[in-house]
């Protein structure tokens, strides 16, 4: 403990080696690096807009924007093409709604189970096991919907359903996003301080009441984030709908019939034999832009919602 005169004064003597300058510099550097990370997403968006915009404009040179948003027929690649985006949008909406109707309750309840009911040991392997569901290649899900779920439903309760249909695709898509919703929500639920739970228990609340009325609201922000990730993945999902939902572009709200989603259309054109630069090819950019705007609106709405109801602790 060889030490010189005791430390006093603002900086830099004795055992205290305060490299105030260096620290300050490092701090700034780190901030800049981190900000750069954040701005990657902005650049990505610019990139996407750039990629989409040019061809989208080309597209709307040839197709009236009014028709695009009002027509109720979609036959982009046929001889007399009609471009009613509503048809594809309704397909996306329908399958996504079904998926969310499955995944949100199941995912949320599963998250509650993992965090509040399961023993730490069970939780430790159950959570990763569920997460495997997120990694199953979507083509597998597609065939699962087509060769397992659809026949099962047709043989049991829904004989009227067509082979390709929105319901099976939506259901299986729901299964696919369960882990996204369950895992991210579970993290948020798990992080709610124990003292909040204790407060509720001490008032004679049951486990369910504590979980659903104290813990869930406190974790709302995380749950909404999880849901957004889940919806986003459902909206952007391609293979499942391409295989199981039928690619039949019709305006219908009947989940037992085939639909075509925006993504299914895009992938169909992008991986097909259409010449690049043709009107049909440009259509995918118009569809992509529309989807981009749709999800943007969804996100803005949910953002406003979260900011209003977020509970901090």
């Amino acid at each position, binding site marked *: 403990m060889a030490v010189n005169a005791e430390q006093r004064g603002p900086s830099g003597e004795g055992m205290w080696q305060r490299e105030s300058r260096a620290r300050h510099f490092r701090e700034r550097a780190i901030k800049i690096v981190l900000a750069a990370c954040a701005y990657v997403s902005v650049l990505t968006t610019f990139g996407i807009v750039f990629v989409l915009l040019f061809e989208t404009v080309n597209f709307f040179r040839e197709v009236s924007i009014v028709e695009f948003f009002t027509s109720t027929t979609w036959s982009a690649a046929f001889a007399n093409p009609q471009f009613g985006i509503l048809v594809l949008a309704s397909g996306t909406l329908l399958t996504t709604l079904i998926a969310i109707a499955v995944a949100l309750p199941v995912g949320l309840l599963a998250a509650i*189970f993992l965090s509040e*009911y399961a023993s730490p040991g069970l939780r430790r392997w159950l959570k990763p096991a569920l997460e495997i569901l997120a990694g199953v290649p979507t083509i597998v899900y597609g065939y699962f919907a087509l060769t397992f779920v659809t026949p099962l439903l047709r043989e049991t309760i829904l004989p009227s359903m067509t082979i390709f249909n929105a319901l099976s695709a939506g259901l299986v898509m729901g299964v696919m996003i369960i882990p996204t919703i369950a895992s991210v929500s579970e993290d948020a639920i798990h992080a709610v301080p124990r003292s909040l739970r204790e407060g509720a228990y001490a008032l004679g609340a049951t486990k369910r009441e504590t979980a659903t009325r104290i813990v869930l609201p406190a974790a709302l922000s995380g749950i909404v984030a999880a849901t957004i990730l889940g919806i986003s993945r459902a909206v952007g999902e391609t293979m499942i709908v391409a295989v199981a939902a039928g690619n039949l572009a019709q305006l219908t709200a009947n989940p037992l019939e085939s639909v075509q989603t925006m993504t299914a259309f895009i992938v169909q054109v992008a991986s097909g034999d259409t010449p690049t630069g043709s009107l049909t090819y440009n259509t995918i950019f118009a569809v992509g832009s529309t989807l981009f705007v749709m999800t943007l609106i969804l996100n803005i709405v949910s953002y406003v919602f979260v900011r209003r109801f977020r509970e901090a602790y």
Partner: protein
Amino acid sequence: MATKSGAQKNARKGEPEGEGVFKTSVSARHALDRVFSVLVFVAAMIGLVVLAVLLVDIARDGLPRLSWAFITSFPSVIPQNSGIYPALLGSLWLLGLTAILSVPLGIGAAVYLEEYAPDNWLTRLIEVNISNLAGVPSIIYGLLGLGIFVNLLGGITGGQSIVSGALTLSLLILPVIIIATREALRTIPGAVREGGYALGATRWEVIRSHLLPMALPGALTGTILALSRAIGETAPLIVVGAATYITFAPDSPLSSYSALPIQIYSWVSQPQPAFQLAAAAGIVVLMVVLLLTNSVAIWLRNKYQRRG
């Protein structure tokens, strides 16, 4: 201000519930609780059951086909000779590079937005923008990657190379990591930060020593979900030029490459049933790769999990 307590006043002793203004139908609440606990259990099991069905189905087709030769052979037009070697290698490269690129980038962005960025319209815009990016279909990322990494930056990335593929996948999964990490940071009580600052720590010191370790489980969850998605993506890779068939194993980030999901997809769409079996075997390989990759993250997450 009249309450029912007066009217219903009975002896305080005896049954604890049911007296005074408290209509404590404890038994009803308990019944509900039991129902609820069954419900959450069932919910957790639904996923598991589907997973089991899927895996059993795939394993039944795929396991007999799986062999060392399958893993070390090149694909072939003869189904029985077909192997997965270059695709496996390609996917490992992709996954490794994607993780190296996206995890630090994603966590960094989340830290910036949650801990540094002022709460102004720009930050909010970025925030909305990021969740919006999560919903952009993967194929659009493919088009982006084609435009930027393959064509524009082809000189650096080597065009249709593993790097281009990994960069594209990184952009694709970045939002998931960012959002999950941000949420994890958000759940950390302010008192932790205050404790750090009050000792004269800089923001970064507090972040590194306290916030990141506490947010790590959440960040890792995001990483697990993101990489799970990355490893299964087909469409964007096809667009940025992953080959369906290559005659050599990729050996550097600038190599041409194929990837597991592309190989699987290509087998699935062949007419010969024998290829369907190869596809199933390929899926088994993919799932194993996925589990091995994720197991690192899962192990870390279990280690850092806290209960505040």
